[in-house]
């Protein structure tokens, strides 16, 4: 049984990352933007795990855990910002907060 080539794992990561990037660029609902950022972070994790599996080292999974911790902190702050946006503007449209004060 041959092993899965690393290129295939990286191709999967690239496809997921591009889908997440398209989501960030195309959607204006801020919840969708946050979800797309999660997809992109997860794609980066897939790339790290695929590369770690290529050399059978634990480093890839360690980097994945750091990405996981970053994603958890980011989503906590991001969702608090979503709540703030909704309470201030009564919408989840990211363009509603396009103007700065002062």
């Amino acid at each position: 049984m041959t092993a899965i080539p690393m290129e295939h794992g990286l191709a999967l990561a690239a496809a997921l990352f591009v889908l997440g990037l398209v989501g960030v660029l195309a959607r204006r609902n801020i919840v969708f933007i946050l979800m797309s950022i999660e997809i992109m972070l997860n794609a980066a994790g897939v790339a790290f795990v695929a590369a770690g599996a290529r050399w059978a080292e634990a480093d890839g999974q360690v980097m994945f855990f750091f990405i996981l911790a970053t994603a958890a902190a980011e989503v906590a702050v991001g969702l608090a910002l979503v709540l703030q946006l909704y309470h201030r503007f009564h919408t989840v449209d990211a363009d509603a907060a396009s103007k700065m004060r002062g």
Partner: protein
Amino acid sequence: MFYVFYISAVVAVAATLLVVTRTHTVHALLYLVVSLLAAAMVFFTLGAPLAAALEVIVYAGAILVLFVFIIMMLNLGRHAVERERAWLAPSAWAGPTALCLILLAELFYVVASGGGAEAAAGATVGPKEVGQALFGPYVLGVELAGMLLLAGLVGAYHLGRREALGDSAGEGTQ
């Protein structure tokens, strides 16, 4: 075992594509859960069982539950019963269920074939090696991740709290 990776990869990409193209937030979340579960399957076939377990627990469990919680908070009130009924329509959950059934079939196949990930990836990197790496050369990174999570906790608390104070302060100044 070899094809489990490719089927999971196709499921992950299809579910992610559906996440980006949905108009309804909850439908997108359902597909996002499927996408993350498929990614966990990919990790398992790549010989990273600990990463797969954490993907299910932290990503598909904790982070997605946070998303669902926030969406429920945003839509509080207003025709709650009709909306719940509309969400339970078969068209809403048929797609995610079909993709999940593919993953479930893969899970059964993996368990039936002995549960070894060694066949797909060159070698399995088990939890023991990862733990030794985490608390050996990467211990400073673990500390920094802990501080980052603490900062995220404080920041989320601050942002969530100022909303009440900010509203009353805003009304006071107007």
